[in-house]
């Protein structure tokens, strides 16, 4: 009985031992894959027709030749927007000289409170090169709809209010094509990874 058991169990045990020491085979993604969600084929990014916090008309054509990081938010935001802007500012710092070819555009979802001066002050506390987008409620609604941005106002008893809004960041390449969308929560290193790819393509 012992001999029979050994005949059957020995190969099993050897197989187990082999699998224990075997290195798992992983499909490693190629280095040129973005960490953001990629749209394929890449189509021209919807154009913006707003006023910039720098006093100039704001449209994406202004930044052709640069990689644009486009996001939506508001200056009174206490949570998501400061984190997003700090992340983007951190990414630009890590890029060093390449940061000159990266433009952050932040469009308000709160046109009732955010004007050009207020957005300039708010964005400037993160990075002086950031440009804000402001306009009338109708103009902002058009910009939001073209990117599928949703926002919902929540009023407080004291008369104040906040706005819940889509928090992804849109990556637009040098040719003005909407290449990818980075969901909220990614690190500055993830942005640096993707920006380096977009800057060289």
């Amino acid at each position: 009985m012992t001999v029979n058991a050994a005949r059957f169990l020995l190969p099993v045990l050897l197989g187990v031992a082999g699998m224990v020491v075997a290195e798992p085979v992983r499909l490693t993604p190629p280095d040129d894959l973005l960490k953001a969600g990629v749209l394929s084929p890449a189509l021209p990014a919807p154009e913006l027709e707003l006023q910039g916090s720098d006093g100039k008309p704001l449209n994406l054509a202004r930044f052709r030749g640069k990689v644009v990081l486009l996001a939506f938010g508001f200056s009174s935001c206490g949570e998501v927007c400061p984190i997003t802007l700090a992340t983007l500012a951190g990414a630009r710092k890590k890029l060093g000289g390449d940061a000159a070819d990266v433009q952050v555009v932040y469009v308000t979802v709160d046109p009732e409170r955010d004007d050009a001066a207020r957005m300039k002050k708010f964005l400037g506390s993160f990075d002086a090169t950031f440009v804000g987008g402001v306009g009338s409620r109708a103009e902002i609604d058009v910009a939001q709809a073209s990117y599928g941005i949703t926002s919902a106002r929540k009023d407080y008893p004291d008369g104040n209010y906040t706005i819940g809004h889509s928090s992804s960041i849109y990556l637009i390449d040098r040719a003005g094509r909407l290449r990818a969308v980075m969901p909220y929560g990614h690190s500055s290193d993830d942005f640096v990874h993707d920006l380096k790819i977009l800057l060289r393509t």
Partner: protein
Amino acid sequence: MNRRLWILLAPVIGAALALLAWAAFAPIQSGSREQVFDIPQGTYARRRAGDLVEILPDRIRLTLGINDVLLIRNQDDVPQTFGPTIMMPGQSFRLPFERPASYQFVCTAHASGQLTIDVEAEPATPWARIHWRARHWWENRKK
């Protein structure tokens, strides 16, 4: 146990042990890390006609290191909103995940307008691999 019974049972026990050992220790491999979902042509039209057709499941489960990339292809004639973006007709959206969590997305391909994606950690222990394989087999047995 007499000798004849042992001779009959030994291969069965050996095969069961081998299967268990394979399930516990063999690395989980997949041909592609992409989990593909298509939004077929006519989805929007069917919805407008009152057909509550479900193209995508309400919940999608992904596993890091195995199938951790969601690929949605819009083959419909109209734009579809998925999560943070609008997919134009003929466009696809490839979204990789790197962290285990439950993600909520707006999705116009759903009657409910909402899609949940559960991203699980890679099964790293023998028991986790057995559990993953058993569940994977159970969920795919009718496909």
